[in-house]
């Protein structure tokens, strides 16, 4: 080992207490950064998964006219031949797992005393359960069944708002395809969990048979939703969805295929700001650790002034002395950073057991953050590399300040130092 490294490493271990204290600051900083980044990535994943499971699906196929007027959920722009379109789609995009038709409409939901406007969906219960995650998120009761008649599933939020319970009657009124108003009563057979209340998904679900009875036999299918196997990462899912939409658009030029990224736009924009915030946090923590390193190396310089004098007397240049103390900083930084990687890894491992978000955000509407259920931290090797590089660079630069001071010491004065 080079003599400077030997002296640097041994001095770092000679002053164990100083090294341990500075190393701990560094370790905690980098450990928290890794966990924070992993949880952010996990949140991103969970948010997008929730979106895919409850509202946007993996890819959505609609007519361009419908998309242009989508805010009003019009019933005038249905897909001309949905069966043929689904067959074409299944052939053109083999990556798709399942397809399901849906028709969204606005209804007034009432308990006979109060009424609330509710985004509602006509669905094919069996096909819908293969594309969306609704069937498995029923908190009370069960999902819709084909041919059962006059059944509805409502979101927990709407049920709470109207004071409705499982088995209660729900009065729905809406504008029909013939442009008149119609109303009918349905029995609540299922109440879905909070997921539906938080992400703008429909609050009332009816089977196509019931919806046609309410809105008219000519009720069109306004969208075809698709699902695909869960991708290994968010980036992969977005890329796969974009590719599927492009293939679908080419196969069905009269329809518009929107990928997942289109629905997650708002969320993805916020995700970038969160990423910046995470780097700010690590910067602040490493700044604190850097101050610790400056302090530790300064203490080291002042406790070894005579040693510096001896090394200079024997011909070491100021540059050698600077290099010696910079290396000490780097060794402390490396110890702290590596310990930080271990701590971060352990915390991420813990987070992968699943963190129940309701324990942190229970009952809070996070707007553009559709987060529900269990959060699993994501393992992101790049974050470990960034943490290590940040730690080493911060300690190297922090050590340069006292190292420069050591290099400037006059050898004759240093030898006199008591």
């Amino acid at each position, binding site marked *: 080992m080079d003599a400077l490294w030997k002296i640097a490493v041994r001095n770092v271990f000679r002053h164990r207490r100083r090294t341990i204290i500075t190393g701990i600051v560094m370790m905690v900083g980098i450990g928290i950064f890794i966990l924070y980044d992993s949880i952010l990535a996990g949140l991103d994943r969970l948010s997008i998964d929730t979106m895919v499971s409850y509202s946007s699906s993996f890819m959505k196929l609609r007519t361009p006219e419908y998309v242009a007027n989508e805010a009003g959920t019009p019933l005038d722009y249905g897909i001309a031949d949905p069966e043929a379109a689904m067959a074409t789609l299944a052939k053109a995009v083999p990556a798709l797992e399942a397809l399901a038709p849906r028709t969204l409409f606005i209804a007034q939901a009432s308990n006979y005393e109060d009424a609330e406007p509710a985004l509602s969906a006509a669905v094919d219960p069996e096909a819908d359960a293969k594309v969306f995650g609704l069937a498995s998120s029923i908190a009370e009761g069960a999902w819709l069944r084909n041919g059962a008649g006059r059944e509805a599933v409502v979101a927990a939020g709407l049920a709470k708002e109207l004071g409705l319970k499982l088995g209660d009657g729900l009065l729905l009124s809406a504008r029909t395809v013939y442009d008149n108003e119609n109303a009918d009563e349905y029995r609540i057979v299922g109440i879905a969990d909070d997921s539906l209340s938080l992400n703008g998904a429909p609050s009332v679900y009816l089977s196509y048979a019931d919806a046609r009875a309410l809105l008219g036999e000519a009720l069109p299918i306004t969208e075809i939703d698709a699902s695909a196997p869960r991708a290994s990462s968010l980036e992969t899912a977005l890329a796969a969805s974009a590719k599927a939409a492009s293939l679908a658009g080419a196969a069905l030029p009269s329809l518009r295929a929107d990928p997942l990224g289109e629905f997650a736009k708002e969320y993805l924009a916020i995700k970038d700001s969160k990423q910046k915030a995470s780097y700010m946090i690590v910067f602040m923590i490493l700044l604190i650790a850097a101050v610790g390193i400056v302090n530790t190396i300064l203490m080291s310089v002042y406790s070894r002034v*005579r*040693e510096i004098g001896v090394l*200079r007397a*024997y011909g*070491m240049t100021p540059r050698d002395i600077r290099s010696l103390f910079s290396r000490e900083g780097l060794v402390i930084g490396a110890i702290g950073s590596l310990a930080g990687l271990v701590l971060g890894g352990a915390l991420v491992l813990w987070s992968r057991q699943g963190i129940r978000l309701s324990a942190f955000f229970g009952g809070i509407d996070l707007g553009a953050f559709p987060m529900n259920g269990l959060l699993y931290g994501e393992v992101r090797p790049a974050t470990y590399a960034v943490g290590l590089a940040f730690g080493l660079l911060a300690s190297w630069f922090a050590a340069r300040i006292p190292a420069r001071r050591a290099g400037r010491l006059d050898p004759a004065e240093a*030898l006199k130092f008591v």
Partner: protein
Amino acid sequence: MAILQLAKVSRSYRKGESEVKALDAVDLSIDKGEFLAIVGPSGSGKTTMLNILGCLDSPTEGTIVYDGTELHGLGEAGLSAYRRDRISFVFQSYNLIPVLTVRENVELPLVIEARARGRREAKSDREIKALALEMIEAVGLAGKAGRFPRELSGGQEQRVAIARALVKKPLVVLADEPTANLDSRTAGEILDLMREINEAMGATFIFSTHDKLVMERARRIVALHDGRIASDSGAPAGARP
């Protein structure tokens, strides 16, 4: 032949508003192989003289010629190189590097030299180790090469310091009060060791001291008073040509 010549060397320091002259127009010529003691009361300029001889400080006036080379205007890098290649030091409080073993301390001057010279011109690690072990044996510490300074007595530490000073075969060894921290028996042993090495290797030894033991063994004594040479016993005939 003079290995070291000081001509009209002065060194002044500013102390507040006033100027203090630590050395005042000193002329001194030192031959190769001398065993010389610089003596004088505190504040007489002994340490300043030793620092200037050791290239740790530069004179404000006058010239120094070291083995035919005029040191004036060498600059920081040049002085570092001069110290590295030709001068060694023995300090009052030994000043061994506490995190290095005896062998590593003795190797240090050679390692510093090797770092400066680069891989091609430098001695190999094996050569450096062999030279260090040879020198450790010469100062009577064979078997203690793997010890750390904290495991040695004061006399043993000073022996290591001497080995460190001599391992690179310097032209001059400057010793600042080398016996001040030792009991008289150990001090006598250390001085005898230095004399033996001086005679065997021909290295020039220059001491700054108050110690009678040193003065008794020195072949030449230069007394300083108020920054001037008050007396000089002169170079003995025994100094090497």
